[in-house]
């Protein structure tokens, strides 16, 4: 709301008041176990607002605070077996999932921007009880929050339970996901590509050339990315992608990852034996960058007379809800 052009005059007031209320909440609460979902959502909104309107440093610090609250609220294990009691409101559960995935994506976008390390990592080591923390059987190694439900089902009050991220990544079919879930999967691939890039630099320093592991990782990422791109292209015609902001972003994120993968190879300075592969990745990067330019042009031609941006947070709480916390 504070980002919409019609509320421009109230923008700073809304932002400052919300931030003050959140600061007061932080001062009052001393119980490590209690985090209201609205509090996390409000911090997410504040962070997005600061990226758009304030300075980067402030936004980044707020993002860190948001991620800690996400961890404190255990939003990464909403669907873990011991949390499923059967009596929790399915809407509230889905709201928690969506809040987690918005934060998860934000973490990776910041990492892409700044090349700083991730906070909400994929490998979550979680002991069921502190006294069992040495028992391997009780440790989960993945995010235990299902991917977000399709938007219409959520808005209609009947969210659909999707699979876990790890299942979506491991699956070989071209399953259809909601745009937010598609973004979470794509940004995961991009996050893994960033990690792959870091590892390859270390390997290059140690061995002086690309290892066999490098190409295995690279081809796996490329295969995964192509699978998602195929699914997106078949399922959604480009026009509808432009009409739907999240889909447009998913398309552009996928193309960005294609460019990123080509950059990794070029940055490696691979030897002559790899030149055909490098040429192929470069060709695809050019095609992807051209597609980004085409989508940018389509986006730019949308009327901007009254335009402002609104963050992509499907769980945005009204101020009254924040005040209740």
């Amino acid at each position, binding site marked *: 709301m504070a980002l919409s052009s019609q509320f421009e005059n109230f923008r700073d007031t809304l932002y400052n008041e919300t931030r003050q209320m959140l600061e007061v909440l932080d001062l009052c609460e001393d119980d490590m176990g209690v985090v209201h979902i609205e509090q996390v959502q409000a911090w997410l909104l504040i962070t997005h607002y600061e990226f758009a309107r304030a300075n980067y440093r402030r936004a980044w610090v707020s993002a860190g605070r948001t991620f800690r609250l996400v961890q404190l609220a255990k939003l990464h294990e909403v669907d873990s077996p011991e949390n499923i009691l059967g009596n929790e409101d399915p809407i509230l559960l889905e709201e928690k999932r969506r809040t987690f995935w918005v934060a998860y994506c934000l973490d990776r976008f910041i990492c892409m921007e700044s090349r700083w390390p991730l906070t909400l990592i994929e490998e979550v080591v979680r002991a069921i009880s502190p006294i069992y923390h040495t028992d391997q059987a009780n440790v989960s190694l993945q995010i235990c929050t299902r991917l977000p439900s399709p938007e219409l089902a959520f808005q209609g009050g009947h969210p659909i339970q999707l699979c876990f991220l790890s299942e979506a990544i491991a699956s070989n079919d071209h399953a259809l996901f909601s745009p937010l879930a598609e973004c979470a999967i794509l940004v995961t691939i991009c996050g893994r590509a960033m990690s792959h890039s870091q590892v390859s630099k270390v390997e290059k320093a140690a061995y002086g050339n690309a290892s066999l592991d490098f190409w295995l990782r690279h081809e796996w990422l490329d295969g995964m990315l192509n699978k998602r791109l195929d699914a997106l292209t078949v399922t959604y015609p480009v026009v509808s992608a*432009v009409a739907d902001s999240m889909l447009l972003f998913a398309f552009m994120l996928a193309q960005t990852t294609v*460019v990123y993968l080509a950059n990794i190879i070029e940055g490696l300075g691979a030897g002559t034996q790899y030149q055909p592969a*490098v040429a192929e990745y470069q060709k695809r990067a050019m095609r992807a960058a051209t597609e980004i*330019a085409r989508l940018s042009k389509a986006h730019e031609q949308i009327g901007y007379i009254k335009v402002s*941006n609104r963050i*992509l947070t499907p769980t945005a709480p009204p101020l009254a809800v924040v005040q209740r916390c």
Partner: protein
Amino acid sequence: MYSVADAEKAHIFLPLTMFFGASCLTAQNNRTTDDIEAITGGFRLLESNGGPGFGGEIQSCLEALRKMQSFNNLAKDHLGILERQDFMPDYR
């Protein structure tokens, strides 16, 4: 064809994707034949539909960023980097 409401929903990190696209095309435009030979061993890369170079495509990204910069600082920051005379895409 598209409503104002559609544009209002623009993802806040959309400028990042435009930056990546424009950087990639700029890098290609700046490459000499020798550079391409060194990277790809002479394999032919893609060329723009609009003739030599990717100037038109780069401009599309820059224009979109220019329009977004009034309400998105990330667009402003990325545009500032791309418009620097000495801008050189960094892959390392």
